[in-house]
């Protein structure tokens, strides 16, 4: 019952062409094998492997590298592909896409506004722009022409599509409009599975199976579909807040554990958290439902959801989710800290400001990016705080007047700048007197903002 044995580069190398042809990015087969083992490259990137004569090796490699949770493509976005239950065991792959519903009852002007909002939304976070990922036209009107019109509008964007409709006739019309987009058919149920299965086969689209809080039926549907020749499946075990929360958490937990640690291929598919269903609880205030939807999405984001379908278009609900996703899907092998020492941010000169921060990686990158935003090239002295943030390292006595003084002396910044002013993080304000004393009263210690987002304003006001 142990987790799947980790595949080593040598196991993989044995099955590669071993020609070092240079057609892949790493260039040589051994490096390509290493990248495959750490799952940072895919088999598609080795062209010779797909040539005639390599079928047997390719098949073996595909089998060897097959994750216990299948990787499925919706549009051009991969979902699932998980190797482990918990991120520290290796890492999570394919950050769970966030899809926003487009109810076909929306008046056209509201629909277009909603689509535009998703298209334009982006949040800058440590050098990346975080966004929503998919659109999910949803059939609720009972009028097939309205669903069709909504799908057409959604198809004008670049987003991959989730077609939310359980009426096979209506679904067929919609999927025929966007069949080259590889939309997700959402969803097959206990009632419509034959017709939905046929559509998925006919249009070669991924198919979601929906069986709320009934895992036996969910697995039976998966087994039936697999036998029928369908591979690209996703599972929706139901999602509910309130008194359904316990069963929701239970379903996600046992499905993922059974797929990976129980090695049950019939539930080895990506999981859908359709938290938009929270809104079916009518008669409540929208902000309350948005709150509950976000809370539920948070729980399922860290409890194995591979795709999340949202209804709220409030940005305050999107932001915690896109950031939590970014955090949780980070490779845990990424170091917590950066090298202590002095860095130059931008084209520094002898008049550039000198600032101090901790060597917690996130602190460093955040401060560095805020300094860049200020457009004032600066020296940044990174104190060895054992990888703790400024606040924690002050509480834990890793950042003290003494450690800051030592870092300033070791940096040799005296040789780099003409002035004698050093800017401390606002949270380290208490060290001003002691630090000036330790530096022999040669330096004036200035107190910067408590949060580095205030650096541009601070420099504009205090650094002339």
């Amino acid at each position, binding site marked *: 019952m142990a987790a799947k044995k980790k595949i080593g580069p040598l196991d993989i190398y044995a099955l590669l062409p071993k020609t070092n042809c240079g057609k892949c990015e790493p260039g040589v087969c051994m490096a390509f094998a290493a990248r495959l083992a750490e799952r940072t490259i895919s088999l598609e990137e080795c062209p010779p492997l797909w040539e005639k004569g390599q079928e047997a090796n390719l098949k073996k490699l595909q089998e060897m590298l097959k994750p216990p949770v299948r990787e499925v493509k919706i549009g051009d976005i991969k979902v699932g592909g998980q190797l482990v239950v*918990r*991120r520290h065991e290796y890492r999570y792959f394919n950050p769970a896409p966030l899809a926003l519903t487009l109810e076909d009852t929306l008046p056209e002007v509201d629909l277009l506004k909603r689509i535009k909002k998703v298209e334009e939304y982006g949040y800058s976070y440590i050098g990346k722009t975080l966004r929503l990922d998919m659109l999910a036209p949803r059939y609720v009107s009972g009028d097939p022409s309205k669903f069709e019109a909504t799908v057409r509008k959604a198809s004008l964007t670049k987003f991959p599509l989730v077609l939310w409709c359980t009426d096979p006739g209506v679904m067929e019309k919609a999927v025929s409009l966007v069949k080259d987009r590889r939309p997700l058919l959402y969803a097959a149920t206990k009632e419509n*599975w034959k017709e939905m299965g046929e559509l998925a086969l006919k249009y070669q689209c991924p198919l979601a199976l929906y069986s709320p809080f009934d895992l036996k039926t969910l697995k039976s549907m998966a087994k039936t579909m697999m036998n029928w020749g369908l591979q690209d499946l996703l599972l929706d075990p139901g999602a509910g807040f309130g008194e359904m929360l316990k069963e929701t958490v239970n379903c996600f937990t046992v499905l993922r554990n*059974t797929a990976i640690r129980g090695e049950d291929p019939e539930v080895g598919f990506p999981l859908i958290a359709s938290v938009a269903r929270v809104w079916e609880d009518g008669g409540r205030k929208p902000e309350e439902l948005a*709150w509950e939807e976000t809370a539920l999405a948070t729980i399922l984001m860290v409890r194995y959801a591979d795709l999340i379908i949202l209804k709220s278009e409030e940005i305050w609900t999107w932001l915690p989710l896109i950031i939590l996703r970014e955090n949780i899907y980070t490779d845990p092998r990424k170091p917590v800290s950066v090298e202590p020492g002095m860095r130059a941010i931008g084209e520094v000169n002898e008049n550039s400001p000198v600032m101090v921060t901790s060597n917690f990686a996130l602190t460093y990158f*955040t401060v560095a990016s805020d300094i860049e935003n200020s457009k004032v090239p600066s020296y940044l002295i990174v104190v060895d705080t054992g990888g703790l943030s400024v606040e924690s390292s002050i509480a834990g006595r890793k950042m003290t007047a003494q450690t800051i003084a030592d870092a300033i002396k070791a940096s040799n910044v005296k040789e780099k700048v003409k002035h004698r002013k050093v800017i401390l993080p606002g949270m380290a304000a208490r060290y001003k007197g002691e630090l000036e004393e330790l530096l022999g009263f040669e330096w004036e210690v200035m107190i910067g903002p408590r949060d580095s987002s205030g650096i541009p304003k601070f420099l504009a006001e205090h650094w002339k």
Partner: protein
Amino acid sequence: MTKGSPLDEILRLLGEVHELELEKVDLTLEELRLVLRPLMTVVPPPVKEAVPAKPLSLLEAEFSPFVQEYPGSIAEVTLGATSADGGTRRKVVKIGGETAPPWHFLEGKFPNPPAIAGDVFDMPVPLPGPVRAVLGDAIEDPIKWAKLAVEKFGADLVDIELVSSDPYSKNTPIEESCKLVENILQAVDVPLIVGGSGNPEKDAKLLPKIAEVCEGERVLLSSANLDMWEPVAKAAKQYGHVVLAWTSIDMAQAKELNRRLYEYLPKEQIVIDPTSAPLGYGIEYAFSIMERIRLAALMGDAELQCPMGSATANAWGAREAWLHNPEMGPREYRGPMWETAMALAMLMAGNDLYITLHPAAIRTMKDVIKWLMGEKGEPTFMSWIGVK
């Protein structure tokens, strides 16, 4: 290949067939060199992807969930004491006691609901707008703030943080800090967490004195750490309190600190705080260290078999929680949700005790915990979201 070898024999036989299908055969070879006879052509079987017939009914499958047994379990820690045990609290708060990973309902027991403490400071500190909006003038008065946290916000405990005791701050005298804690014990009837300022020299004197004046009340002393643990551990032992064991996102350190504390205290008097970095600002480290600590404990590592605590109010350290920026959505919703989302992630990682600021976070956590414990009930967070 030598004549008459088994492989040769196979190839001879192969000459008479066009197709060969090997089933359930593993070939383990250092190097395989197939020398094919000139006249023999190996024709791959024609790819006939027969479309399986449309099934008439669902193929019944039994779903048997993967279930693991865990040899270890988490100690049960009691905070506060009623008159029956020499204290004055209306009721105690019990945390811990789990026998399986967080919310693996089929694998073990979760006898105690995780508990939520309201964070209270002994002097006005810089607080984000959405928190100030719900506190009003209670920010100026820790007694009023503590009552608000219990009576209105619904906190299970109060965490009084004696930040003004820091010599680099107001350097409030120890007697004055003790007096405040006694007054809070009078003002509220829930168990207390008492936090020092983090200054190791001052805390080493302050926390033992707090332990003395709170004798019988079984408070959680916050905190012991690798720079300062002995005075706190001794005082907790002498006066019957519980210790928060704080380390910085490092499992080896958490074990080391507990080894030292175990010389004075049983597991039932320790809560592990492995540091809670905010959402957007390192939560992934906090999340994974909690998952690892809990799993190691359940697998039998006695040095980690204590409940865990999290200063979830740290969420407000992330600018996304408090920045006044319309492009990020209204902060009177965004901020409390930030703290709530961080707490919910910690809840799924196995955390047992939360120190929180905003009532929307406290209420949502209490709602979610109630439902996870299998209890019925309506949500209670509603009046606390969107407060300007």
